[in-house]
C-alpha cells in the first residue's frame, strides 16, 4: 500500500479538509486503489517528451491567445455586490474569526 493513514492526515491538512476517522479510513482504501491503477503511467517512456500544460500549445493558430489588453481602468464588481453573498460582513469587509491573538 502506498498511502498510509499518516499520509491521509498530512494531505488532508494541506487541503484544509477535516475528515472524520471513518472518512480517513475510506480515503486510504480508495486512494490506494486509484493510485494502483494510475501507476500504469510508469510503463510509458516519456524521456524525450515535453509536458503539455495547455491545449493551446498543440492546437495551432486557431487558438493563438490574443495580445494583452491595454492597462486601463475598467469598472469592476461594486463592493456592495461583492459582499452580497458573504456569510458575514460589516458592510465594508468580510468578517471572519479572529486571526491574531492579542
Amino acid at each position, binding site marked *: 500500500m502506498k498511502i498510509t493513514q499518516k499520509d491521509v492526515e498530512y*494531505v488532508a491538512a494541506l*487541503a484544509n479538509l*477535516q475528515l472524520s476517522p471513518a472518512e480517513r479510513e475510506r480515503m486510504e482504501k480508495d486512494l490506494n486503489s*486509484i493510485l494502483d*491503477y*494510475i501507476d500504469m503511467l510508469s510503463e*510509458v517512456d516519456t524521456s524525450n517528451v515535453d*509536458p503539455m500544460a495547455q491545449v493551446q500549445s498543440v492546437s495551432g493558430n486557431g487558438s493563438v491567445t*490574443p495580445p494583452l489588453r491595454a492597462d486601463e481602468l475598467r469598472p469592476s464588481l461594486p463592493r456592495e455586490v461583492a459582499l452580497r453573498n458573504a*456569510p458575514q460582513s460589516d458592510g465594508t469587509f468580510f468578517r471572519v474569526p479572529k486571526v491574531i491573538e492579542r
Partner: protein
Amino acid sequence: MADDLDLNLLTLSSARIAVQERQTTAVALIEKFYEKIDSEDRKPGQTNAYLNLTRERAIAQAQKLDRIADAGDPLPPLGGVPIAVKDVIVTSGVRTTAGSKILGDYIPPYDATAVSRLEKAGAIILGKLNCDEFAMGSSNENSAWGPVRNPRDPSRVPGGSSGGSAASVAAGTAVASLGSDTGGSIRQPAAFCGVVGLMPTYGRISRYGLIAFGSSLDHIGPLTKSVKDSAILLRHMAGHDAMDTTSSIAEVPDYEQEIGKPVRGLRIGVPKEYFPAALDSAVGAAVQSGIDLLAKAGCEVKSISLPHTKYAIPAYYIIATAEASSNLARYDGARYGYRSRNGKTLSDMYRLSREEAFGPEVKRRIMLGTYALSAGYYDAYYLKAQKVRALIARDFFEAFKEVDAIVTPTTPSPAFKIGEKSDDPLAMYLADIFTVTASLAGIPGISVPCGESANGLPIGMQVLGRHFEEGTILRLGHAFEHARATSLA
C-alpha cells in the same frame, strides 16, 4: 394555440417558427413547459433534472419576444426557444449551486458569457439543471440534491456529470440545454439518454461564468435533439470573449451551412483501441452499423491506431484532480458559500466549512489532486501525466494526417443502474474511458444516437475531429442522422 404543439418534438427552428407565426405566444409556450416540468420532473421518483426554475426571468424574456412577434417583426435567431442550463454555469440573480451544498445559497452577481449570448439571440432560460457536484462524476449520483433518473429507464443513471442537461432534453422538458464537459460530461450523458451532445474545441466557447473544475480541460457545450440544433447553438455561443483569455480568436463559421455540405470522400478513422474484447456487444454492433452507414454515404473508412489510449484515464485523473484541488481551494467559507458555525479560529472555519459541505467524491478528488501535487510526488504523478497527455495529443495529431475524423463508441456500455458503481470510484472513472482522450487533446467531439440495446437503452457514437473543425464532425453527425432515419424508415 400552444395546445397543438408536441413539446417532445420541438426543435430550435420549429419552436421559433411557432412563436414567430403566432401559433403560440412565447409566454404560453414556456407556461406549457413549466406545466410539463411540474408534472413530470419535480415529484419524488421523477426525473429530477431541474434544481431551480427561473420563471420570472423566463416570462420577462418571453414578453419581450412576444412584443416583437406581435409587431410582425422578425424574431432574433433563437427567438422564443426554451432552453435550460447546467447548474455549474452562473446566472445573474439566480441561485447557482454546482450541485454542491457549499454553494447552496449562492446567488451569482453576473451571467456566464454563453448564457448572455444565447439570451441575446432570443433564447428563454427555463431553469437550472441538476449535475454531479462540481461536475465530478459520471452518473449524476454525486449531486447534493439527489440523483437524476434516466427518462428512458428510471432505474438507471442518465450519465454525468451533465445528467440533468441530457435528461431534460430526452424528456422534452427543454428544447435544448447547456452542459459542461471536462472528461466526457456532455458526451457520455448524451449517449446514455439518447440525445446529441457536443464538446467543442478547447477555447471555442468562452468559459467566463463556468464554475471551474479542471481549467485546462473544462468546456461548455450544447445538448440537443438533433445535430442541426447543436450546430445552431454552437454558432451563437462560440467566439472570443474578452472575459476569458483562453477563448479563441479563431473565426466562427456558419455551422448550419457547414452541416449541409456533402460527406462523400471524407476519410474516417476507426481506432482499434476503442473496440476492446470487453466492449458491450450491443454497443459494438450499433457503432459498427453506424460506420457502415457512413461508408455507404461515401466516406472512406480506415483502420487506425491511437496507441496511448489506455493511459488516458490515469493521466486524466491526475491532471483533472490536481487542477480541481487548486480551483476548489477558493471554497473556504470566507467570502461566499457555506460557512460552518463550529469554527472558532480561522483555520477551523476553513476546515469545518469544507468538511461539512463538500460531498465524498469532491473530497476524494481534492485529496488525490493535492497528493499528486505534493512535495516528492509532483514529478512522478503530475509532470508524468502531463507528458503522457502530450503523447495522447500526438496520437491524434498523427492520425489526423491520414483521416478527417475518428469514429468510436461514446461509452463502453449503455446506461448502468443507479447504485451499480457508486461504491467503486475506479469503476465509475472507467465509464469515461472513450471520452477523456479528446478532452486531454482539446479536440472537439460529438455523441450522436446510433442504436439501442436489446432492452431499449440508447447507444451513442462519438465523432472526433481536428482542433477547430467542429464543422466536419457536425457534418458527419448530420449525414449520419439522416442516413439512420432513412434506414429505419
